[in-house]
């Protein structure tokens, strides 16, 4: 890696009297999970290369409360939400981008009722915007002709109706987008949502991520693309379970683009 990442914090920006164009909400997975941190960095590399004025909250960021709410702990969720909203409002944040569909859904849909109204976009939507405005360019090169299947994260797709932005980006890479038998509105969950990520699954005859991985493998992909750090983990585990990790990569859309741009 040639250059160190430039990751300004809101506190630094504020002290310098500057306001970023957008706040990058990193999320817990993006901050702490080793696999997800790579997604975070890939996204930052794209932002850096395009000279996008952004900032992160850094140590002032805290869990949005999504897993607590979905686990049934409304109190903990609202404590998290109200504290986060105080920080966001203090910095007069207008626009937020995040690579986590759970953070995206929670901040976009559940924060406004608690006093936090922002324009919230998923990183695939944001990248799409940048591309449309000509602020980033993409060349297929690396992925030309590769078969890529996209796994719809529930909280991006069904929950918020975002299906096209990630797919358009994949197509911009000159890759061959192949769809699983369950996609878009009918996309099958990876098994992590609703706080399942943090517990053992109930007794059954299969794990959800294995079922979904099998659907993905049916498309004989070179790459399984994801747009959510939790889906990424679940699909990576699924591919390992099928002993296909040497042939099939599980990659976030941001990683695809960063790789294509040789960042």
């Amino acid at each position, binding site marked *: 890696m040639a250059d160190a990442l430039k990751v300004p*914090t809101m506190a630094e920006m504020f002290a310098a009297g500057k306001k970023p164009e957008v706040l990058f909400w990193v999320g817990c997975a993006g901050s*702490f999970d080793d696999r997800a941190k790579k997604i975070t*960095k890939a996204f930052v590399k794209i932002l850096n290369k395009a000279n996008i004025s952004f900032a992160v909250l850094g140590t002032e960021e805290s869990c949005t409360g999504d897993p607590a709410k*979905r686990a*049934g702990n409304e109190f903990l969720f609202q404590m998290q939400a109200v504290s986060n909203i105080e920080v966001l409002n203090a910095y007069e944040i207008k626009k937020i981008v995040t690579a986590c569909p759970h953070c995206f859904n929670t901040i976009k849909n559940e924060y406004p009722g608690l006093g936090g109204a922002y324009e919230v976009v998923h990183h695939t939507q944001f990248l799409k915007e940048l591309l449309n405005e000509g602020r980033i360019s993409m060349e297929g090169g690396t992925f030309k002709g590769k078969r890529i299947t996209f796994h719809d994260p529930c909280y991006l797709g*069904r929950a918020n109706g975002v299906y096209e932005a990630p797919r358009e980006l994949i197509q911009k890479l000159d890759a061959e987008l192949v769809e699983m038998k369950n996609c878009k509105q009918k996309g099958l969950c990876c098994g992590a949502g609703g706080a399942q990520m*943090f517990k053992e699954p109930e007794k059954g005859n299969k794990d*959800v991520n294995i*079922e979904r991985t099998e659907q993905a493998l049916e498309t004989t992909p070179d790459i399984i693309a994801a747009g959510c750090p939790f889906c990424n983990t679940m699909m990576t585990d699924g591919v390992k379970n099928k002993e296909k990790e040497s042939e099939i990569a599980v990659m976030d859309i941001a990683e695809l683009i960063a790789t294509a741009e040789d960042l």
Partner: protein
Amino acid sequence: MQYLPNILFVAILVIGIGFFVKNLGKLRRNILLGKEVDVNNNKPTRWRNMALIALGQSKMVVRPIAGLLHIIVYLGFIIINIEVLEIIIDGIFGTHRIFAGLGPVYDFLIASFEILAVLVIVAVVVFWVRRNIIRLSRFFKPEMKGWPKKDGNLILYIEFVLMLLFLTMNAADYSLQQMNAEHYLQAGSFPVSQYISELFGSLSLPNLILLERTAWWLHIVGILFFLNYLYYSKHLHILLAFPNTYYGKLGPKGQFKNLEAVTKEVKLMLDPDADPFAAPSEDTEDPSKFGASDVMDLNWVQLLNAYTCTECGRCTNECPANQTGKKLSPRKIMMDTRDRLEEVGKVLDANKGEFKEDGKQLLDDYITREELWACTSCNACVEACPVSIDPLSIIMDMRQYLVMEQSAAPSDLNNMMGNIENNGAPWPFNQMDRLNWSKES
């Protein structure tokens, strides 16, 4: 004595409709046991949803075969019911085919009823084959054993018989018209039953009249029976699909409601000016129960959902937990809610409208914790429902009860929540390390 049939008819009609109206009252009372919920917003969108989803069947056709068959039966029943209006008028006033004066329009109407009746019979037979010969897996989940399975078939039998009676009535009528029988005026066009009438060639005039009258009476009595059957059946959806799609969830599916009672408490806790030792003011209400352990804790739209469910199983079919062998079935969540609500209704009936503890509740006695914790909140069930039922909201309300009232979350989740509380992440990492990734290569 010549008015005896008229009197008999009016009596049957009054009893049939009266009993149905009485049950509708019970239905309304049971649904309103649910909590208040604000669904008076966005009326234009709500009307639009009802028009598209219920009237326009837009979500039925997601599965093209079942969708097409369903549209046939649905249209058949709505349109053929114009005939019921004529039967009722004839029955009350002793007339025969009172709308015959419409002439060619009448011919057209009767002809289309007949063709629809045949299509309905075909669709009903295919539905029966799917349930009993092909045995589609979604009709054979554990919750479908016993009454639900019988109910599904009974509806098909009743519809089959009603259509057959309608065609028999027309066929006999047609034969009588050909014989210039008294009282049987020449009216209507019978593209289907004219062929059935050939079977009746050997019947004498009195026997034909007997056949026609029998089919006529059985048809209308059958329809009144079917009307009353609805309340005891999954078939209630033919009425409730309309209000249910009207009151269905608006806005993004991922948006779960924020509990207002909690918001007040949280704001107070985080307000630096609040006096923590202040005595509660006079008008402070008792703290409400969080989440749901029984049907009365759900809101009335969720209870309406339960009565609307027609147990088609599209939700369960799409559920990732169910697909991988877990106990959770969103359809069972709805069926359990209705069964428990009916049980509560019976307790009310037995105690002059007052609820007395019956030692049971929705949680554990109907819906187990294992089912609730298997949900990934992926919204596949909500998306799949053709009549805007939201099983996920019930699951979430019941989880809320388990966690907030009973602290009964699985231990892994307690760890996760403990981490969020202590260090702002679901894992045990220090919040001060949140930006470390930016310095790692």
